[in-house]
Structure formats: structure tokens, C-alpha cells
């Protein structure tokens, strides 16, 4: 807080002169970067299409209502597949994420110099690559289908689960582990009775949270051929069957909202 004097009277100011200049410099640079980026994108845009968009949107909307409820019979199986991709993918991820997190946490890793960097690299590379890109790769490698979807969801989720889990392990209360060890427990017993009970609630919370995200992610894997509700969505869009598209979109909203509700309830029950 600073006070400036103006015509002999004291005036309250939020920052002194130096801080004010620094703030303005930050604002100016950010605005310049934003304008520059916007300019580059604007160059690559055909503005006639953009001005036309409201009319297009109205047209599309008119084609999408009413949803084609008759085609719902063919959609139960893709919905079941989508849920399976999310659930089995999450299951696979948490099974792999536990040892990775154990190796990545500073207080449990077998070796800070060798094992920890490897575990951290696994976490970062799994997190940086979107599940759709994993699906793109896996579909070219092992062929289209639900299996590729499960693997890609699993591979993407390892990093997420392992990162949150290793942070939870690093935040545990060491004195409890110390107490268990003082009773003469071996390393494995100290882990099982000193560390696991402390991170178990976090672990359950993370798994359910990721499951909720994975439901949303698995709705699009079908677009690259990896199974689930994305397959009929892609088919409906390519055949311009807009009434089916709107039905599928409604189903996706319902599934995602239901998943979010379940996950919120479960997390509430755990914590």
C-alpha cells in the first residue's frame, strides 16, 4: 500500500510507483503476446465461413431436432462398451500406477538416483499424451476395437493416478511408519501397516475421480476406431444422420452426468 500526494492532499494508492510500473509492463507484454497470436490465427481463418456460422448453427440445430429415439436400440451395446473401456482402463491404470507411485515417492523409492527419474519419466510421458493419441497409436498397432480403447485409457491414466498417489505418499506422517517399524516390523509390514492405511482414502478418491474423467474420455475413442459410443457417433456424423447425432449427444450428457454423480457420492462417502 502506498500514499501519493496530490495538490498537497494524501491520496491512497494500491501500489507504489515501482510496483505500478512493473504491473503495467506485465499487462502490456501479455496483451502484445495475445494480440500477436490472435493476428496469426486470424490470418489462417477464412472469415466468410465464420460470419456464416450463426446461420449454419441454426440450420444444423433444425436438422438435429427431434432426436431419433427409434435408433436407441442399437446404442445399448456401445454404451456398455464405453463404460467397460472406462472401468477396465481405470482398473488397469491403478494396478500399474501403484508400483510406479511407490518408486516415484521420495520417501519410499528404492533409489533416488536411478529408479525415481525413470518413474517420473513414465508419469510425465503418460500424462502428456492424450488418450485419443494413445488410441490412434494402438489402433494402428493392435487393430481397432474395445481392447485398444481400454489400453489407451489405461496408459493415459497411469500418469495421472501415479502422480496424485506419489504426492499423497510423500505427504504421509512418518511417525506412524516409525512406530510400526519400532515394533520390529519388516519393510513390507511397515509399508502395509504404516503407509497403506494413510494413503488408502486418497487412493480410493483418485481412482474414482479418474474413472469419472475416463467416462468422458472414452466417449470419443470411437472416432479413431477404438470402440464405444464414439463409433456410432462417427458413423452418424459421416452419414449426416443428424437426428441420431443429437440422440447420441443426449446419451453422452446423461452418462457423463450420471458418472459424475456416482463419483461425487462415492468420494463423499470415503472422505
Amino acid at each position, binding site marked *: 500500500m502506498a500514499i501519493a500526494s496530490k495538490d498537497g492532499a494524501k491520496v491512497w494508492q494500491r501500489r507504489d510507483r515501482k510496483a505500478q510500473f512493473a504491473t503495467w509492463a506485465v499487462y502490456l507484454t501479455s496483451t502484445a*503476446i*495475445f494480440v500477436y*497470436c*490472435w493476428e*496469426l*490465427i*486470424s490470418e*489462417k*481463418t*477464412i472469415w466468410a*465461413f*465464420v460470419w456464416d*456460422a450463426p446461420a*449454419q*448453427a441454426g440450420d*444444423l440445430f433444425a436438422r438435429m431436432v427431434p432426436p431419433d429415439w427409434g435408433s436407441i436400440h442399437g446404442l445399448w451395446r456401445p454404451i*456398455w*462398451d464405453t463404460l*467397460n473401456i472406462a*472401468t*477396465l482402463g481405470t482398473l488397469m491404470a491403478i494396478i500399474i500406477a501403484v508400483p510406479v507411485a511407490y518408486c516415484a515417492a521420495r520417501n519410499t523409492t528404492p533409489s533416488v538416483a536411478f529408479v525415481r527419474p525413470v518413474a517420473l519419466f513414465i508419469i*510425465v*510421458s503418460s*500424462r*502428456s*499424451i*492424450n488418450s*485419443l*493419441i494413445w488410441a*490412434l*497409436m494402438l489402433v*494402428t*498397432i*493392435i*487393430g481397432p*476395437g*474395445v*481392447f485398444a480403447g*481400454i489400453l489407451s485409457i489405461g496408459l493415459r491414466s497411469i500418469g495421472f493416478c501415479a502422480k496424485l498417489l506419489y504426492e499423497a505418499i510423500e505427504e504421509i506422517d512418518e511417525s506412524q511408519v516409525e512406530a510400526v517399524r519400532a515394533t520390529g516390523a519388516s519393510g513390507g509390514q511397515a509399508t502395509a501397516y504404516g503407509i497403506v492405511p494413510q494413503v*488408502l482414502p486418497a487412493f480410493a478418491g483418485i481412482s474414482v475421480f479418474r474413472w469419472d474423467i475416463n467416462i*468422458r*474420455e472414452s*466417449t*470419443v475413442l470411437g*472416432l*479413431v476406431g477404438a470402440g464405444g459410443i464414439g463409433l456410432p*457417433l462417427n458413423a452418424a*456424423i459421416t452419414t449426416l444422420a443428424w437426428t441420431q447425432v443429437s440422440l447420441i*449427444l443426449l446419451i*453422452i*450428457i446423461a452418462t*457423463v*452426468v450420471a458418472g459424475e454423480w456416482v463419483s461425487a457420492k462415492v468420494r463423499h462417502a470415503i472422505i
Partner: protein
Amino acid sequence: MTLAATLTRRWQKPPLIKRAWLRWALALGAAIYLALAFGTTEVNWTRVWEGLPRGARFFAAFFPPDFVSRWSEIFDGILESLWMTVVATVIGIALSIPVGIGAAKNIAPAPVYYFCRGILAVSRSFQEVILAIFFVKLFGFGPFAGCVTLAFATIGFYGKLLAEDIEDMDPAQAEAVRATGAGWLQWINYGVQPQVLPRMIGLGLYRFDINFRESAVVGIVGGGGIGATLNTAFDRYEFDSAAAILLIIIAIVMVVEYSSGYLRRWVQ
């Protein structure tokens, strides 16, 4: 129970779920679900087996990845992704501020609250790629559609967290500002904004990070950025170029993540 009986009893770990019937019902339910799920998942093992050499070839392509032969396409794609990320994050956050304020139960009237919550729910339900398909349809191919997609997805993420943060704020401070006779805008600016700002800056940087990662996938459906290049590389089985792109994405995400972590600590 007598003392002797207690002494000879062995300690047992208490079960995670106390009610026995619930424990068994959950286990049984999980077993039935897993049996059904595995039973209905068709895996074409011969196709998987045939694909393994291709997978090996893909992993071999990482040693060394080919940065050179498609360098100009990769470079353009990465730059375009970065511009898209900057523009989309800024516009998305700017738009999510009114939506987030409207979706906070303690300061918005009921009709506004439900309207804004509706926007957030729609934005959060759809994965970026589905949104991108529609925006590409409306705005044509190119980075503009990708930008709109990312900005719209940002509204759902940022608006929801902003609304929750405002709902958790300390009402006493806001009340004090109001007691000085402040107008509504002044009240928001001096009573509410300082309480949520530090966390919101951190989340803004986090969203920048997410938007960059997502910008790699909106390109697959025509939304501009590095995704289009990556998709082409996969379609043409140019695994060494694809490996190069993936490594660049990983590197940039790491840089953004570390610098945003640093910035967040500096701001808070």
C-alpha cells in the same frame, strides 16, 4: 470376555467395510461385473499378435526419432498449437469470469445461477474432440475452430472452479466492503476478487497446460495445430516423425508444467 481369553486371541486387521453383508455384496457385484465385462469384450488376439512387430517398429522409431525430414511441418504445427493455446486460454478465462460469478450460489440470483450452471454442465460433459467436430463444421477447418473449442472447454473447467471458490469465500470481508457503501462492481472487485485471485492465477496456468495438450488432439478432427501433422504421420506409418512429434509435445508439456509450478509459487 475374560482376561485369559483376550490374551490368547490373535489381533486381526479390522475389515475396510464394517458391515459384512455390504462387504460381500460389493465383492459379489464387482465379480459379476468383471465377469460380464470381460465376457463381452471381444479381443481379436490374432490381430493383436500380428500387430506386435508393428508396435516394435514404432518403439524402435523412438531411437532415433526423425526430426529432420518433416521439420517444417512439425515446426509450423507446434507454433500453431502454441498460438491457439494462448488465444484460447485468454478468451476462455475472460468469458468464464462472468459465467463463474453467475454460477456462484451466494452472489447470483436463482435464474442466473441455473442458467450459468447449465452452460457449465454442457461445456464439461462433452470431450474437446466432440466440440471440435461441431465447431469445425460451423467455422471451417483451421485454428479458429480449434481456438473456439478450447475456449469453450476452458469455460466449463475454469468457470466451475471459480464458482466453487467464490462459494467458499469468507463472507465477512465482502460484507465489510459492502458496508462502506460500495456498488456491485466495486463489491466484486474489492470484496470478492482479492479472495479468489491467487488460486485462480494458479488454475489459469494449469488450464494453459491442459489446453496445450488438448490442442494436440483437436487437430485430428480438423481444428488446426500439431494434431493434424501427427494424424498424417500415423496414417502414413511414418512412425519416426510421429515419435519426434510426441517427444516435442512431452518436452513442451514438461517445460510448461515446471514453469507454471514456479510461477504459481511466486504468485502465492
